């Protein structure tokens, strides 16, 4: 099916997004954050925890005074490596053990630091390349089924139970497994360490949890004869670090939104903008597909009213991703099926929005989220609403399909719920596989008119945002009716201006290899 849409308006929306994001990018280029610096350390091989279970990267970053940190943690570690002959991981361990003080090597020339660090930077980059190549080889050998790719969550709070659930879901037909993260983690200013066996609302995103699930899915992939992707969550206070860990453990997707943390977690906007940039640069090079969080606009407010805001956010997310060197095929823009089921012709509106998104972002692996807001304890009706969501997805060619659960709003999915949900999606998508190809949208009909009005509303919104600036627009509650000030929110104190001579060797190496629009 094909909607007639106003391509001039689409082009104008892209141009507006460019002018909205450009000033923010200038801010990003002049700043860094504690989480960006900790990600640099992780890429250099620092790991583990020191006293009081504080992660080594946190200990090292916190050991420097801000004026020194402002030149980049890499420079400081480089100096220590040059002086001591330790490798960066050993240097980190020595600092965490209190044996050496990072600040004592300040007198070493910058050039010596850069030279000492160079082989370790190359080793870090090589590790990212190897993991990416490994994914490519597996995808070649273990072909995925055609999209929509069925995506289910596991959320027991125990990574070992999650593993059982994930393997069962793969057998039922799941192609992507997302390990739900403990609800509080987005607000932690460190990445917890080790395996989680007792989490609330999920498990922590830790390197060990990533490793456990990756190993289980690799085995399940071999048995199923198709590659199963692994997803976790980066959004929050540690986006860059989680991007680094995910790259190393070969995750395939990460939830990574340029504004979600600001609007829905009250994380400082400057912190989020700087963090999302470096994390996406890493994701781009690692071949990780990002999933953006536009579904949140729909779950917190009326889905019909918010449609233009969703499209506007997709344009802005796309622009930020392009600026971080991401190709379209890695930009999993979000949308959701959240219109009130009681609304007459609501299904037509859903189809209009989904198809509009498909055509506006033809090469993006769109992420389609299931109904949640209007799901009740009536599991029978819920299963039926999910079926229409499945139909919309296959008709409009969505790529990443989050399977709706009949027990949504009751509990985190049971093993049996997941199986029923996957069955539902497989039935609908098989029986209606090429339905979308057979349909001609009635010119001037409800679907076409709805799509046109969403696009027009989006253009108006983007114009308003462009006229005052993105940070000011967020302060003025333009998005999701949420008001955030540029210096308010969590994590603001972790943002600092880069001093002359600032060094982030990974940023330099990544930018040299990625295509970033001028």
């Amino acid at each position, binding site marked *: 099916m094909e909607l007639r849409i106003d391509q001039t308006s689409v082009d104008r929306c892209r141009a507006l997004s460019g002018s909205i994001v450009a000033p923010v990018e200038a801010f990003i280029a002049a700043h860094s954050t504690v989480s960006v610096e900790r990600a640099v350390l992780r890429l250099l091989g620092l790991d583990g925890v020191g006293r009081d279970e504080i992660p080594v990267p946190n200990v090292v970053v916190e050991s420097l005074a801000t004026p020194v940190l402002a030149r980049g943690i890499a420079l400081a570690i480089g100096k220590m490596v040059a002086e001591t002959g330790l490798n960066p991981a050993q240097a980190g361990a020595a600092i965490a053990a209190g044996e050496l003080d990072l600040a004592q090597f300040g007198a070493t020339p910058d050039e010596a630091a850069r030279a000492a660090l160079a082989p370790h930077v190359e080793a870090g980059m090589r590790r990212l390349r190897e993991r990416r190549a490994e994914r490519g080889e597996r995808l070649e050998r273990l072909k995925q089924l055609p999209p929509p790719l069925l995506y289910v969550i596991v959320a027991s*709070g125990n990574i070992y139970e999650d593993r059982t659930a994930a393997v069962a*879901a793969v057998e*039922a037909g799941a192609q992507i497994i997302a390990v739900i993260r403990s609800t*509080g983690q987005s607000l932690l200013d460190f990445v917890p360490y080790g395996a989680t066996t007792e989490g*609330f*609302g999920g498990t922590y995103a830790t390197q060990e949890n990533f490793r456990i699930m990756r190993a289980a899915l690799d085995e399940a992939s071999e048995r199923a004869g198709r590659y199963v992707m692994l997803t976790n969550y980066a959004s929050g206070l540690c986006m860059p670090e989680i991007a680094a860990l995910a790259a190393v453990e070969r995750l395939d997707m990460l939830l990574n939104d340029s504004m979600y943390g600001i609007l829905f*977690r009250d994380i400082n906007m400057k912190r989020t903008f700087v963090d999302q940039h470096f994390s996406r640069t890493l994701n781009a090079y690692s071949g990780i597909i990002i999933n953006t969080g536009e579904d949140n606009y729909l779950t917190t407010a009326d889905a019909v009213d918010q449609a233009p805001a969703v499209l506007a956010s997709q344009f802005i997310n796309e622009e930020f991703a392009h600026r971080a060197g991401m190709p379209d095929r890695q930009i999993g823009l979000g949308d959701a099926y959240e219109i009130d089921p009681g609304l007459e012709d609501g299904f037509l509106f859903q189809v209009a929005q989904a198809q509009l998104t498909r055509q506006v972002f033809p090469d993006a692996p769109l992420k389609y989220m299931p109904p949640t807001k209007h799901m009740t304890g009536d599991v029978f009706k819920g299963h039926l609403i999910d079926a229409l969501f499945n139909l919309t997805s296959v008709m409009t060619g969505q790529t990443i399909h989050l399977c709706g659960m009949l027990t949504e709003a*009751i509990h985190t999915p*049971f*093993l049996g719920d997941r199986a029923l949900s996957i069955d539902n999606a497989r039935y609908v998508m098989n029986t209606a596989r090429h339905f979308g190809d057979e349909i001609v949208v009635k010119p001037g009909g409800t679907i076409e008119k709805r799509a046109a009005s969403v696009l027009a509303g989006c253009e108006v919104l983007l114009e308003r945002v462009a006229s005052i600036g993105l940070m000011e627009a967020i302060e003025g509650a333009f998005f999701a009716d949420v008001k955030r000030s540029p210096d308010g929110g969590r994590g603001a104190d972790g943002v600092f201006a880069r001093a002359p001579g600032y060094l982030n060797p990974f940023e330099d190496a990544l930018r040299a290899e990625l295509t970033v629009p001028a």
Partner: protein
Amino acid sequence: MTQGVKPYGDTMNDGKMQLSFTLPIEWNEAADEAARQLAVNMGLVDVQVVEGRKIATGFSFFVLYASTPHSVDVDNVKASPARAHAMSMEEVDAFVAENVGRKIRVAGACIGTDAHTVGIDAILNMKGYKGDYGLERYHWFEAFNLGSQVAAEDLVRFTKEKDVDAILASQIVTQKGSDVKNFTELVELLEAEGLRDRVVLVCGGPRVTGLLAAELGYDAGFGRGTLPSEVAAFIAVTLAERLRRSGSQLFA
């Protein structure tokens, strides 16, 4: 003596019900029989396993129909009084003006680690839910929405500082009883601070029932589908009643 009530399939007192569950066993015909016997062990009769199949290695899913020999005496069942006072926004405002005579201060939050504000937002935000305006819109309420992941200590501190009359604690997502733990923690803290009797304490969320609320020591609990005006009416009536009682004590 009242006649007990049984589930209704297509004939009075046939006791028909459906159930479905997963067993952690490989599926085969013996697995169907295992599911049937499990239902028999539950006290069900005429058990039919209408669907049994493998859903994963080592896991089987079943759908059953059966009859229960039990009944329930509905005349002796007590329900939550929380929704007993149906009033519109205008009626609630008029009631507060007359019976309280000042704005009622309400603080709401998603407590603990829960980040899902859909419930508390539906009740408090101006827009409300299903065309029923939220408490922020009421003239005689002053509503504070503290948002998500609010620690019980912070909510109690806020209650003290702002002299809050009513607290709404919300829990949407739960896991292994985290919602009950968080609700309990809040009550205990309020009691420790000597504030419990000064506030109208309300909990809400998809699994909350009047019975659970009473068990936890809350004044009321509101489950799925609750309208803001139902919560507003409950708070207004309860607070007015308390003021009347404490007032009459003064004059006694």
